[in-house]
């Protein structure tokens, strides 16, 4: 057998957790213990290696840091193999491979289960609906071959699925499109209009809302998305663009009741944009309006603090101090209190 036989004294360490090394060990005699924190509880776990057993395999194969510390409890002999020697050994002993595959797949299953236990709150996706949606995506992109594959796969695995009629319709239309018949049946069916009116060479999806339940209530999602875009612009220091988008959202939000929750946030962000643009008067006005309109909003203390900052920047110490004090008097306590204290201290 290849490898080097090495002698380890009791109390020594063969490798530490976090070490990088590509040696693989087989214990020949003595006692070696692997010490590592449990991934579930973080508590220390000790595992005794039996004679003839391998250790250090996974880290060596993956070329990753050791996960455990190998401590010698009683004087030991171990056969030390390099990665290449180990691989050579494996190819000559297929049984070892099967054993390791079993051990590793058990470990992977175990970790996988733990991961899933943390994801339990996730909505359980409907696999067949999701598969169908993949087809819809490709169809929308006019990737007909790919859409065709997905719809066929859907029919194969879910012959009684909820979307069987739609999948069959789509396939027929794709077939027409690919063969150049272009009867337009697909568009006709979806729109509920006579086929002649919608005679197109290629299928197109026009009623996505019917197919994608998530797309319903799309306007609310739209406000959320645009709000996020505006915040993104702010973080990119594109203050004017951000302000414009917030302002547009503000007017749109006033008309749409479902968006009302965003209005105070938008007003607050508009104030911040104006501050960054050095439009001090406008900024104070915007923050003041926001405080008047939404006296119970979570950003009130931040708005008061920002007004204080604006006055400070304009050199109006007295007014600045009065706003920082307002922040400190107002409950509940928040991280902004510390900042307000700091600012007050600099004013004195």
């Amino acid at each position: 057998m290849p490898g080097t036989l090495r002698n380890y004294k009791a109390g020594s360490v063969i490798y530490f957790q976090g070490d990088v090394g590509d040696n693989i060990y087989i214990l020949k005699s003595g006692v070696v213990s692997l010490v590592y924190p449990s991934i579930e509880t973080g508590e220390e776990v000790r595992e005794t290696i039996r004679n003839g057993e391998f250790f250090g395999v996974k880290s060596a194969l993956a070329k990753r840091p050791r996960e455990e510390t190998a401590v010698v409890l009683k004087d030991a002999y171990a056969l030390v193999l390099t990665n290449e020697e180990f691989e050579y050994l494996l190819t000559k002993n297929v049984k070892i491979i099967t054993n390791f595959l079993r051990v590793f797949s058990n470990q992977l299953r175990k970790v996988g289960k733990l991961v899933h236990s943390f994801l339990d709150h996730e909505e359980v996706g409907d696999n067949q609906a999701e598969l169908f949606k993949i087809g819809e995506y490709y169809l929308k992109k006019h990737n007909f071959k790919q859409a065709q594959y997905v719809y066929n796969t859907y029919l194969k695995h879910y012959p009684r699925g909820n979307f069987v009629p739609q999948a069959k319709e789509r396939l027929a239309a794709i077939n027409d499109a690919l063969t150049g018949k272009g009867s337009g049946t697909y568009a006709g069916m979806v729109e509920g209009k006579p086929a002649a009116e919608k005679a197109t060479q290629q299928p197109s999806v026009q009623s996505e809302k019917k197919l994608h339940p998530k797309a319903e209530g799309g306007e609310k999602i739209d406000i959320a998305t645009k709000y996020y875009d505006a915040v993104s612009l702010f973080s990119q220091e594109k203050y004017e663009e951000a302000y414009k988008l917030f302002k547009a959202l503000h007017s749109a939000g006033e008309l749409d009741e479902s968006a009302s929750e965003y209005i105070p946030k938008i007003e607050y962000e508009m104030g911040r944009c104006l501050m960054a643009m050095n439009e001090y008067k406008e900024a104070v006005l915007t923050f003041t309006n926001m405080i008047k309109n939404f006296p119970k909003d979570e950003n009130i203390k931040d708005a008061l603090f920002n007004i204080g900052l604006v006055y400070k920047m304009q050199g109006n110490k007295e007014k600045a101090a009065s706003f920082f004090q307002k922040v400190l008097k107002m409950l509940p306590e928040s991280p902004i209190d510390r900042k307000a204290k700091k600012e007050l201290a600099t004013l004195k």
Partner: protein
Amino acid sequence: MSEMQMDASMFDKFGVTYQPGDILFCEYEPGNEFYLLQEGKVKVTKIVSEMEKTLDIFHPGDIFGEMAILEDQPRSATAIAMDKVKVLKFNKENFNLLLQSNPQLAVKLLKVFSNRIYDAKRRLLILTLPDIESKACDVFLMLAENQNISPKTTTPTTFNSTVEEIANWCGEKPNKVKEVLISFSNSGRIQLFEDRIVVKNLYELFRLVRSKRKSQSKE
């Protein structure tokens, strides 16, 4: 006999050929085969918020789809042939035959699994954190590790990730993660772009996660 010659004789039994653009398997498709790529390139994609994103590109000699032999979950991504592609396709049943005739390939599979265990444990480490803020921070740290970027980096670091992807790693709803990222952006920790996120100071996130873990282990 060389590895490639052996593969050639195996091609009759397990070989499949695909044309450019052909799908080998798609996201949410049930399946229990894994693939050894012999010729051509295969890209693995996933549709995230109505956008097809390429996760990986495989080259001859690579193994993919191996998770299917472990669990009864449908495929988590789509594999598409980028050019003319030849693969060997194996399942649990004919796996032993492969082992006997091509142990090098089996060793490769062992390596793939070893790496997967490390990846899964790293993911678990994120999920065990107590709140979305620290989870999101740890996701950036993990992504940095994958790119061999030191967690002690104090200069801006760019990640080509979207909110949805970060949320997926956190195991949290995208809307909640979005709120957290917005607050990070407001406090100047990160910059948000449509297709990427810039972390201003990775080391700051590292310290935050480390202190969260410490206080957790004390409890």
